[in-house]
């Protein structure tokens, strides 16, 4: 049995890495890109999509009991259903 909170903590670490890489990419794009509408549109689309995914995940997490834990047998069942 693995507590769910461990998965959430791992997700937060990856979210931090994502923020760092995104900030660097956006900074480079806005600093070195030509002054053109597509530069702004692509950056805005990237930010909006990222925010939608993060808010969607957080919204889902808000309704989950994080004290629960994951049974390894259910992971095996998931694996079987995919194969």
């Amino acid at each position, binding site marked *: 049995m693995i507590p*769910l909170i461990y*998965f*959430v903590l*791992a*997700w937060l670490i*990856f*979210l931090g890495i*994502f923020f760092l*890489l*995104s900030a*660097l*990419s956006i900074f*480079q*794009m*806005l*600093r*070195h*890109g*030509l*002054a053109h509408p*597509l*530069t702004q549109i*692509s*950056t805005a689309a*990237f930010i909006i*999509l*990222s925010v939608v*995914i*993060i808010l*969607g*995940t957080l919204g*889902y*997490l808000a309704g*989950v*009991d994080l004290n*629960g*834990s*994951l*049974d390894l047998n*259910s*992971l095996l*069942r*998931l694996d*079987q*259903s*995919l194969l």
Partner: protein
Amino acid sequence: MIHLDHLPDALADEKLIKVYRRHPITALGLMASLIVILILPIASFIVIKINNPEILNDQALSTLMVLGGGLFFMFAILFIYQHFMDYWLDVWIVTNRRIINIEQNGLFSRTISELRLYRIQDVTSKVDGFVRSMLHFGMVYVQTAGEKHYFVFEDVPDPTGIAKNILHLAEIDRQEHMEEAMETMGQTSADKHPAIREKTATHLEP
């Protein structure tokens, strides 16, 4: 941001002629494969729903899938954005005085090189391969006098037209450069003449 009205280290009377980029199809190749990758998690979800729908009732497992799926999509769009950035930040700016090549490699590697048009000696265009021939894009190699390495426009649309355009602009710039040089030489000689005349006059005085 780079404003085309204010080019870096702009020269006197410099006017923007055109900005060239790689053909969009060069960016679409990886984009298409990424779209296929993006479909994978959705397809997996559908397979689970058909084969074993009771798994989705397990809250812990559903949470794991939402967290994993979210991360997958986030990093996929970040990868697409960085790939677009790599395409978008590579530009060749042609003005009536020079060619500026700006090349972005990854996040932290950036090369800017420029070439004065009057120094151009040879321009070659090359279209090879099926896709390039069909969509008419390819390479343009610009060579200057006394230099072994080429200045390369990679996978640009209409390379033949670009080569002709650059040769034409180089010819105009060379003529203007010659005129400037002649004017400067002419002025120098004219400046020297009165002094020579004065010296000669003093020698000739009785």
